[in-house]
């Protein structure tokens, strides 16, 4: 099959089907409603289920229920909707259920706006919900990458028995790009007999499985948290993904940027190169685990005089960038949070202001 032209939101919906996920629960919200629109048409065609919850709170708990029963399941929403699901995300994380969440981020805080934003970086990588939990967070920079990340998210969620979040932004959801669906990324749902409440008659065990997040005994809760932490540490070892751009040059500035914003930064780097000024970029593809070591290494290059975290928010990822750079180079942030994506010219002016 050749390439087709798809809007990010449609492609995300189709990618989930191609990944082998036939259960989708959601509640509409701009700028991601096209996922539900698309899947309301497509799910019945492939024998899947699309169920619109009465709210995002309901959706969060429907996901918990379905995943606890061993079903491969996912949802999509945008910022305020993810806030409403955050309680369920904490429970799902504690109960170690694999669920894929897609957040097509819009401007905040509060109702904010409907234009693209990356202001849910903290929410995605540091919590949102309560307790010591982490999500594996991936950030696509193109519609094709969104497709691939969605398809990879399901086996990753099952590998770690942990929720995975795809952090897109309004532009990733709304723009159209030519794409194809890599057949090799299709996976079968893993066997969940040893933990899911998938029915006593389907597995050879006399002991019922229990999916829960309540541990009243201090020792048991401590033990549970240690198990969870070991998973997050393993993600840090095995799942860091990033892309480097123009790092083989004697660059004077290092940009760290993800998602839509990184697309602008690529143009910036190309334009500055044409002017004889070298800059480079590390683009985190996973926001948790964060590519700490590659950023530290890139910032340590002798020619590099400044590290700039460029984000569609008022400065969130910069805290992780700063932590990664460990004082090897001065770290600054440039961000915009209203919904207007900075133009390449604007970013070039910012970079030049440091020299």
């Amino acid at each position, binding site marked *: 099959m050749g390439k087709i032209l798809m809007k990010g939101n449609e492609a995300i919906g189709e990618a989930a089907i191609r990944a082998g996920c036939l259960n989708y629960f959601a509640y509409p919200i701009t*700028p991601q409603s096209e996922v539900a629109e698309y899947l309301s048409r497509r799910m019945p065609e492939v024998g899947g289920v699309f169920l619109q919850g009465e709210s995002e709170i309901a959706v969060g708990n429907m996901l918990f229920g379905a995943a606890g029963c061993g079903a491969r399941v996912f949802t999509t929403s945008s910022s305020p909707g993810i806030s409403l699901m955050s309680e369920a995300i904490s429970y799902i994380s504690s109960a170690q259920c694999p669920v894929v969440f897609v957040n097509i981020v819009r401007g905040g805080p509060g109702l904010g706006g409907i234009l693209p934003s990356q202001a849910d970086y903290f929410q995605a990588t540091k919590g949102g919900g309560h307790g010591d939990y982490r999500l594996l967070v991936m950030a696509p920079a193109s519609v094709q990458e969104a497709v691939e990340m969605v398809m990879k998210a399901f086996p990753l969620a099952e590998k770690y028995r942990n929720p995975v979040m795809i952090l897109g932004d309004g*532009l990733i959801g709304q723009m159209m790009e030519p794409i194809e669906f890599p057949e090799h990324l299709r996976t079968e749902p893993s066997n969940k007999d040893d933990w899911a409440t998938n029915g006593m008659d389907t597995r050879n065990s006399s002991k019922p499985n229990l999916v829960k997040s309540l541990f009243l005994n201090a020792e048991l809760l401590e033990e549970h948290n240690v198990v969870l932490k070991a998973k997050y540490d393993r993600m840090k070892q095995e799942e860091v993904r990033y892309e480097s751009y123009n790092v083989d040059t004697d660059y004077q500035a290092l940009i760290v940027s993800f998602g839509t914003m990184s697309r602008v930064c690529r143009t910036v780097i190309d334009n500055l190169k044409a002017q004889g000024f070298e800059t480079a970029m590390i683009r985190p593809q996973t926001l948790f685990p964060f590519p700490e070591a590659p950023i530290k290494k890139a910032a340590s290059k002798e020619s590099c005089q400044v590290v700039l975290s460029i984000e569609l928010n008022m400065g969130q990822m910069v805290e992780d960038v700063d932590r990664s750079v460990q004082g090897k180079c001065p770290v600054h942030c440039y961000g915009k949070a209203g919904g207007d994506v900075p133009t390449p010219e604007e970013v070039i002016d910012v970079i030049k202001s440091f020299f």
Partner: protein
Amino acid sequence: MLIGFNKVEHIKGIVIIVGNFGSGKTEVAVNLAVNRKRSGIDVRIADLDLVNPYFRTREAREPLAELGIDVVLPPEKYLQADLPILSPAIAGLIRRPSQLTLIDAGGDDVGATVLSSLADPFRKKRVHMLQVVNPYRPFTDTVTGCLKMRDQIEKASKITITGILGNANLIDETTVEHIYKGYDFVKEVSDQSGLPLEFITASVELLPQIDVERFSCPVLPIERQLVPPWKKAVRLKK
């Protein structure tokens, strides 16, 4: 650059652009407006897209205004609202049309529904309603899919589609082969529906490589206006 475009001089008065979601209605409408304006006729364009939050005609309002094309939009203060606002100016525009009044409707039958609420101003007016088809989009990659879309849009809008526009493209990855195959496809849609194929499109970058003699219809050159922030729109000259 107008390629065989004198053949579409009958496309005047009120022209409504419909089609499935993401078929390229806005890019086509904007470029058609520019093309006709350059040929010396008065052009107004109305953004009736109440369903799509991004990449709408309103994004191109400045370059269009510079060319003297009047863009009819909801009042400025509601421009960013995530609400379906139908400007009362639209009804006025239909009652007193310019030489070419282009109406860029929203996608699918859902986006075309708003047209039915304009039934009163449309009454007794001669209206062209053209369906944009991009065969590289889901749901209109088969002739049956296109005919189904036609039927749904007609039902929702309560207006009859009068012609087909071929807009085969994969944006930056479009090749000459895509244009040729796309033409053959929309020709088939035209034959099976009995609707005339009014014109097809091709980007200005690709046009020099295309053998226009191969087509039985004119080609509208597309100077891409709706671009993501890291790309530049083609600068429109008068």
